[in-house]
């Protein structure tokens, strides 16, 4: 498999803030690549560098054999970019937006309709509606259509599912899988760890540096510690208590449960359960679980910051 995007030693800072710190990354052709990181990790900065909207302080990026800085004109023809913020014309209708972007890329809607057909079917009933009046999910679909209308080789999606409901989100990912079949390299930035498992490979980004690049399964398999989920009536008190507990290595709130790792290699869960029960006077359940991407992310992030 050949490389679509080759990122080498990228640095970028805004005044005194280091947004990206020595980023190197290879993304393969036709890959669905996830860029996972919390807000402020540097995802958008990296995207804007890829999209030729920003110049790096140091390092180079090659996309489909073209240098992002010197051959930006070439790259703009083969790039589809969907910014995190909805940036189509809200006062133009769905059809007008699509037509406009097709023309700007020197193509016609009909020429690449097969690529966007599935999405287009969903938004076609609203084609005369103004883009600003669409629902969040529809807006994203329209933006995706506009980014795909010229059949790009690389598709950059900056947090496409932020602020979109769960159903639309899973729909969106199904669409991406379909687009991938056309051999388009897709790079998705997302703060949602659960979406990471849907990617072919992911890069975990934290504070402008890459923690790990691997397949989602690969990331999870590198997790060495035994992980436990603790449930009880009062999660918050339990967390405060565990932070003071002498054997605690890490404890994070995870929805309705706590994810806990212990300093000892082997220990009795009953002992922990008993300790919590005594202290809180309530029922506590401790069970062993398999780590997910977020656990790995947290662990790597702590490791790095130590």
């Amino acid at each position, binding site marked *: 498999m050949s490389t679509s995007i080759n990122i080498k030693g990228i640095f970028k800072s805004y005044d005194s803030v280091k947004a990206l710190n020595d980023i190197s990354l290879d993304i393969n052709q036709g890959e669905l690549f996830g860029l996972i990181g919390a807000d402020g990790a540097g995802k958008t900065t990296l995207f804007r560098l890829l999209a030729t909207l920003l110049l790096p302080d140091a390092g180079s990026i090659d996309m489909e054999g073209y240098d992002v800085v010197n051959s930006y004109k070439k790259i*703009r023809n083969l790039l589809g970019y969907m910014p995190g913020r909805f*940036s189509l014309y809200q*006062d*133009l209708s769905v059809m*007008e937006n699509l037509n406009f972007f097709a*023309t700007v890329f*020197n193509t016609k809607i009909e020429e690449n309709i097969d690529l966007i057909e599935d999405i287009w079917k969903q938004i076609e009933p609203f084609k005369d509606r103004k883009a600003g009046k669409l629902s969040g999910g529809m807006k994203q679909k329209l933006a995706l259509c506009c980014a795909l209308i010229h059949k790009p080789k690389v598709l950059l999606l900056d947090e496409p599912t932020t602020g979109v409901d769960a159903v639309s989100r899973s729909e969106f990912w199904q669409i991406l899988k379909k687009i991938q079949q056309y051999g388009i390299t897709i790079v998705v930035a997302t703060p949602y760890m659960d979406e990471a498992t849907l990617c072919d490979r992911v890069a975990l980004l934290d504070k402008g540096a890459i923690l790990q690049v691997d397949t989602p399964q690969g990331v999870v398999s590198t997790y060495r510690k035994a992980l436990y989920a603790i449930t009880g009536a009062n999660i918050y008190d339990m967390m405060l208590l565990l932070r003071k507990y002498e054997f605690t290595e890490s404890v994070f709130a995870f929805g309705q449960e706590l994810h806990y790792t212990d300093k000892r290699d082997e220990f009795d869960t009953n002992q922990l359960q008993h300790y919590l029960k005594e202290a809180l006077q309530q029922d506590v359940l401790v069970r062993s679980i398999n780590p997910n991407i977020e656990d790995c992310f947290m662990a790597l992030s702590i490791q790095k910051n130590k």
Partner: protein
Amino acid sequence: MRTIRYILQKEFLQIFRNKGMLPIIFILPVIQLCVLTFAATYDMKNTNIYIVDKDVSKHTQEIIGKFENSSFFTITGIGFSEAIAEDEFLKDRTDAILVFNKGFGNNLDKREDAPVQLLVNSIDARAASLFGMYIVEVLQEYNTKVITTNSPVGKSALSQRITTSYNHFYNPEMDYISYMLPGILVILVTVIGLFLSAMNVVREREIGTIEQINVTPIKKYQFLIGKLIPFIVIGFFELGVGLLVAGFIFKIPFLGSAWLIYLVASVYLLTILGLGLFISTQTETQQQAMFIAWFIMVIFIMMSGLFTPVESMPEWGQKLNIINPVAYFIKVIRMIMMKGSGFHDIKQYIGVLLVYAVCAISFAVNRYRKVA
């Protein structure tokens, strides 16, 4: 070409869909033109005068009668006390006070000095000097009449004076409307052009749409031409409406060629729009753009010679006008409409504007960056 056509189509769609802006672009200028032309006139149509008549003689009555009959004056009151008159002044109910002291009529009959006191509210110095002039003129006229009637036959008391006769060229009736309207029309075209263009690119930046445009292979010049042309069309439309209003509502004499005005206007609009787009590419928010545009606008207008003659400005001010496109266009449009100047009379101004336009537009294209 196809790209530019689509950008144009998009821009027009957006302009006509903007329900808030549409009336501002098309209706407001016409209303402003009608209102401002009447308001911004130097003609003194109405002077309020209060008369303190302590004499109450035939002569004072006749003079008061003259004021009453004049359309320029409204007598707000006649009284006997200067204190009351000054009170009127303070309450701003009168612009001038004319005081006849006791014995005025008698002195006049005896052909002795008959002084009259005139007090004028001079907060607005220009208006005050005009009030004064008009009032003195009325008194002078009466004076002449008295001297003539009282003179013995054959021996004229009138000394020979040098008299000047005026012939006002190009605006024989000294009509301010035909002088002001072309200027105000220029201002309106400028305001619309400068503000619309200054707000445009920055608006796309603020909404975020520029982000999507910037990653497209669209060329800078295509994008900016697509932005320029709609505003030129709107500017032409405004100018056309303005000229129609001038011709049919105000009945201003129109000596020159309308096509020539349009020729100058096209060069002028390129200048203004170039300037606006330049502002737009350099600012981050519409608010910033708005303030900068407004600042430039006010300087241009105040220096332009619309409200005060350029000739009365200090020399440095007059020199500054070399770079003021508004001054050129006001001058040229007045020349064409009132003097009937032809192409050869104004070609040097067109030349200057052309240089200006090329500079402004190339600056705008150059400073517009697709990469941050």
